[in-house]
Each structure stands twice: as structure tokens, then as C-alpha cells.
């Protein structure tokens, strides 16, 4: 093969691989990316039911109700708006009323959410960053200050 041919082969294979990668990334971006909203943002966005989302905020005090077969409902709040969440399954170790939480799932109706996974924070110091931001936006919590209902 000539020098020119070799160079062309190299450039062509580069274009093929990079093109494939770009195509895959764009395709995956369309379908497998999940937006995150706090309850207030969610209310403002007026999304249609069926949208796949993550909702974050604090678990409202006294809102956790457990049903049969690990089903439960709770309310995520940012002190202004609330979202009712239905969930079936185990919740993480640090899921508690008054603590930060992120729920991933599908919007069922306005302010109604069906979660298929629930994430809580990792230790008592740490607040999921999205939740912290969502709360800060509503002026409920400030950086450095203890979490609104610290466990100690």
C-alpha cells in the first residue's frame, strides 16, 4: 500500500470510530438522561405525566406512610411546594423524615410521583448536592449551617 493509501486508511478509520462514538453519545443523550428538579421547580415546569425525573428535597415530617408489601408513600418538600411520592421496595439506611432524599421515577400527575428508586444521603454530614441547591434556592437552608433538622 502506498504512503498515501496508509494515511487515508488511518484517517478513514478515525472518522468511522469517532463518528460512531458521536452517534452513540447523541442517541444515548436523548433517551437515558434524567433531569433533576426540586418540588418548586417541578411545579413551575408543568411537565406532562410520564416524564422520567429525579425529585429531591426533604422528606416531610410525619408524611411517611407504610403499606403492605413494602409499599409506602411520603412527601418531598422544599418548604414551599410538595410532591407526593409512591414507592415500593426497600429504602436506604439513612432514609428518615426530615432528611434529604432523591427519588427517581415517573411523574404520574401534578405533584404526584411514582418512584422506582430512592436515594438518601450517605452520612449525617452530607446532603445530596442537588437537594442542597434546591433547598438553597428556596432559602430554606444555607451552606455551612446545620441541615434543617440535624439528627443530633
Amino acid at each position: 500500500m502506498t504512503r498515501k493509501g496508509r494515511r487515508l486508511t488511518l484517517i478513514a478509520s478515525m472518522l468511522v470510530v469517532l463518528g460512531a462514538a458521536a452517534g452513540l453519545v447523541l442517541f444515548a443523550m436523548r433517551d437515558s438522561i434524567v433531569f433533576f428538579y426540586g418540588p418548586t421547580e417541578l411545579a413551575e415546569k408543568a411537565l406532562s405525566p410520564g416524564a422520567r425525573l429525579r425529585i429531591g428535597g426533604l422528606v416531610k415530617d410525619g408524611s411517611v406512610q407504610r403499606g403492605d408489601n413494602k409499599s409506602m408513600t411520603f412527601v418531598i418538600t422544599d418548604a414551599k411546594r410538595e410532591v407526593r411520592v409512591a414507592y415500593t421496595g426497600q429504602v436506604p439506611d439513612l432514609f428518615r423524615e426530615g432528611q434529604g432524599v432523591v427519588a427517581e421515577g415517573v411523574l404520574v400527575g401534578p405533584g404526584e410521583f411514582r418512584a422506582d428508586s430512592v436515594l438518601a444521603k450517605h452520612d449525617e454530614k452530607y446532603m445530596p448536592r442537588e437537594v442542597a441547591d434546591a433547598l438553597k434556592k428556596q432559602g430554606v437552608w444555607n451552606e455551612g449551617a446545620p441541615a434543617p433538622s440535624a439528627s443530633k
Partner: protein
Amino acid sequence: MITEIGHYALVLALALAIVQSAAPLWGVWRRDAALMATARPVAAAQFLLVALSFAALTHAYLISDFSLLNVVENSHSAKPLIYKISGVWGNHEGSMLLWVLILALFGALVAVGSRAMPLDLAAAVLSVQAWIGAAFLTFILFTSNPFLRLAQPPIEGRDLNPILQDPGLAIHPPLLYLGYVGLSITFSFAAAALICGRIDASWARFVRPWTLLAWLFLTLGIAMGSYWAYYTLGWGGFWFWDPVENASLMPWLAATALLHTAAVMEKRDALKIWTIFLAILAFSLSLLGTFLVRSGVLTSVHAFANDPARGVFILAILVFFIGGSLALFAWRAGRLRQGGIFAPVSREGALVLNNLLLTTCCATVFVGTLYPLALESVTGEKISVGAPFFNLTFGPLFAPILLVMPLGQMLAWKRGDLLGAAERLTVAVGAGFAAALVLGAIRGGPVLSVVGVAIAAYLIIGSFVEIYGRIAGRGVTLGIALARALGLPRSAWGTALAHAGVGVTLFGLAATGWGVEVVQALKSGDRMDLGPYQIEVREIAKRPGPNFEATVAPIDIRSGGVVIAQINPARRFYPARQMPTTEAGIATLGLGQVYVSLSEQNPDGSLDARLYWKPYVALIWIGALLMAMGGGLSLSDRRLRIGVARRARATAAQPAE
């Protein structure tokens, strides 16, 4: 007093690092041998000082010196000894000190092992290494000083985060840092080559052992981290595409590419500029990883207490080193003599394809990890990019690497014979089909698992076909074949073993599709089937531990009525932090595992649990071990030894214990 000595040693180390970053480089500029010669002793002294400082901090942890803020926040007098030691790097400040310790260690190793190197190259390498050292020592001293005293020391500390109270902490961070920071050496070599303006096959021979060493530790570190997450988080998963995991995967991909391209450079004196670029890229990605973990800009399982000032400082370091090295690259790379372009069908052609695919994979991980950050800073929208994205992009791009891997191994340098190579791989392809048919028939299950297992079998067999071709043949007796096998260069065995390791890991990953998962509330005396086994909960009991209280559910695992294993999954509660943890009960049966993790206790006394049967799951990590062993075997090859690598291995292994 010891604490003050440690603090002072750290300040002195910074001063030496500054000297080391300037004097030898000035010597290279002025062609002054005396100035260049300062680099080696200063690098050694810098390492000793950082080691002294690290020892002082360890001492403070051992004696529970609660006049140190760092010790108060992360230790407790009742903590077991091993966690007092590993707790030194179980927090931000201490882990940065470990980072710098390993950096200084590598600098000292280069200083000791660089006798064979041209003086100006060694001086420039150590100088660049000292730039990195100086930057991070400044970072520690000004934003993350572990030696800060408290005016009024409390009586008791706040204990280490319970999730970190695990042997994994003793092993995972040191291994990972040896890998991350080991890449700084290749970076320094690349920068030094650019500064000195020359690069040749001997440069590649100096760099390759260091790359192998860093890659080996990075592989082990990632595998260990994955296993740790698997058994400690209680979710039964081993890879979450978490930003911090991605941050370690990206340098690994770049280092893997570098490892292969360095071979081309050594053998064929080509791909020089690309090799330099990869060396810069690999360490830049390590730095990026450090930034992502420490700044807290991304939500992840690795939650260090974050401080915006630290994030900004590391970002500044990141910009300086990545920007600076790329600027140097743009300025000087043109001066390096280029190698030729070679035939597409050849060993080097296959290695170029490997590099192309690996760096593209790396790029998709990069996009997936940083896109949320970019989008948020531009539009304010928050998104999460999870496993589906990476499965859709990384998977299809990595698959061709797997398919081409044995083929590339069979091709000759310069001009390969594609048909011949394919022909010799018939056995491997046959093995793949056989594995697919047999396991598909026995277990059925998802198509992806069957295909994955087929590719894995093809990879494992294919990795050794080349060696088989070299030692066996018509009329060769077993004795001759054995003698030939022993006579082969160890790097050939290393390559085969590492490639087979990839196949073994793939096998384990593919087999996850055949797993069984049950979520159920367990009561004392419960019996149930789990995969091929039957399990019985003996009791649910409370047991106190040294600094926690535990609820345990001892479980018998039976096969055909006989108890073959017992596990004790537990839930612990650590009063000092008011925090529960899950201790999964894991029994390794053959290559599979029974995995039980407990969560909350219900009002009726039963315990919610997740029970898994995971066939062949151990292969995921065994494969990684094989890859690392392959790397080690190559490292012990005569051609790569030059004294440097062997000593480096012996010494570098120490802090990991």
C-alpha cells in the same frame, strides 16, 4: 512535639520541592552538570521529609492525640488498631498527604534508579515531578493541613465514618494512589522529553516500566474499590458509573492505551508525539479525578467534607498542569522527529486501532461524567447521566476492542497476515461458540449473557493461541514445548495473561445476567430456595461490637440437604455517628457467591433483606488480578528490567500494607 516535627518536615519538603523544581531545570538550560546533579539527592531528601511527616500524623492517630483537629474529626480511642492506621488516609487531609507521599516516593525511585539515564533527562524529569510536588504540598499546607491543633481538645473523637471502617480502606486508596500518582512519572517523562527536545526508543524503554507499574496498581486499585463497594454498600452492585469511579476509569483507559503505544515506540520508533500526548492525557485525567473527588462538584458515593476553597485551589493546579503541559506540547512537539505511517494490517496497525478505540471510549466516559456539570453551569438545568448512557455508548465501543485483541496479538510487526491470523484463531472462535452453546443450553437467559460468554471464551483461548503457535508444532514433543515455553520472553506470557484476564472479567460480567435476586422479609427459621441452594435463617439476634451494636441473621446455606456454608449478614449501628451500616453476608461457592444484605427491622421483628445468587461473579475480580499479574510478569521481563522496575516494585509495595 512529634506533631510539630511532622508539620515542620512538611514545610521543609515544600521548600526542597521548590528548589528541586528550579535548580535542575536551570541546569538543563545552562548545560550545567553540577546544577543538574542536585536533582537526585534533593528528591530523595524530599521523600524522607514527607515520609517523616506522614509518620508523625500516623503517630498522632495511634496515640489518639485529640489535640489535633484531624484526629478528633476522624478517630475514636476505641477504634480498632487497623482503622487507626488506615484512618490516617480515610479523610481529605490525610489522604492528600498519602498522595504527596507516593508522589515523593516515585520521585525518589526515579532518582535512585536513573543512573542509566542521560543526566539532563533525569534532571528534567525530577524537576517536573517537583513542580507537581510543590503544587500539592502548597495545597496541603494552605487549605488542608492535617497538623492543625485545637485550643481545647475534646476527650473523645468523632470516630471514622463507619462505612470506611473496613479492611478495604487499608488497601484500596494506597493501591489506587500508587496508580494515579504513578502516572505522574510518565507525565514528567513526557514533559522532560519536550523540554530536552529529543525522544527516541531508549526514552520509551525508560518510560515503559513506569507505565506498566502505574497501570498495574491502577488496575488493582480499581478492582479493589469495586469489590469494596460490592460488599460494603449492600446493593449487590460492583460498578455504578459513579463520577468518581469514572474518574479512575478514564486514566486507566488512557494508561492502557499508553502501555500499548509505548510498545510501538520502543519496537518501531514511531508514534512518538502520540505517546507523549497520551502520557500527558493520562496524568491530566488523574488530576481531573482528584479534582472531581475533592471539590464535590459532582454528587457521588465518595463524599469528603467539601470546602469550596479547596476545589478552586485544585482547579488552579489542574489548569496550570494540563494547560501548561499542553502548551509545552504545542510549542515543542513539532521539534520531535516523527516516525512513519505503517501498514494498516500489522501489529502496530492493530495497536493504533486499539489506541483509537480506547481513547474514544475514554472520551465517551469523559462526556458522560462532565456533561451534567457543563449543562448546569450553562443552563442551570440539573441532569443525571447514569448507567444506561454508559452502557449504550461505552459498551458498543469497547466490544470491537475485545474482538480485535487476540487478532492483533497474532499479527507480525511491519506487515501482518490477516487471513493467516484469523485462520489460527479458528480454535478460539470455536471455543466461543462452544461456550455459548453449552451455557446457553444449560442456563438459557438473556442473549447478552450468552454472547458475552462466547466472546469471553474466544478471548481467553485466543490470548494463548499465539504462545501455543510459538511453542508447539508438528513433531514437537512435550519436553521441547515446555522448554520453549520457559524460554519465551516473560512479556509474551504477560501479554497473554493480561489479555486472558480481560476475557475472564468479561465472563464474570456476562454471567450477571444469570443471577437471582430476591427481596424478602426474613424471620427466624425461614427457609427458601436461592438459585441452586437452599437457605435457612437460624435466628435473628443482637450482638454488641467494640464501637457498634449489631443485629445479625446467621444463615445456613444448604446444597442437597448438607450445610455447605454459613454466613452472618448484619446491620450495625455506630452510636458515635448515629449511623447504621450494612454488613453483607457473602459465601463464595465455587466461582459464584451467595450475597445477603439486611436492611430495616420491621415492627414484627422480621428483617428486610436482599438475597442474591451471583454465578461466576468472582471472575470479575479474578480477571482484574490476572491483568495485574500479566503486567507484573511483563515488568519482570529482562528487556524491561534495567534495574529500575524491579527495585521500584519492591519498594512501592510497602505502603500498601
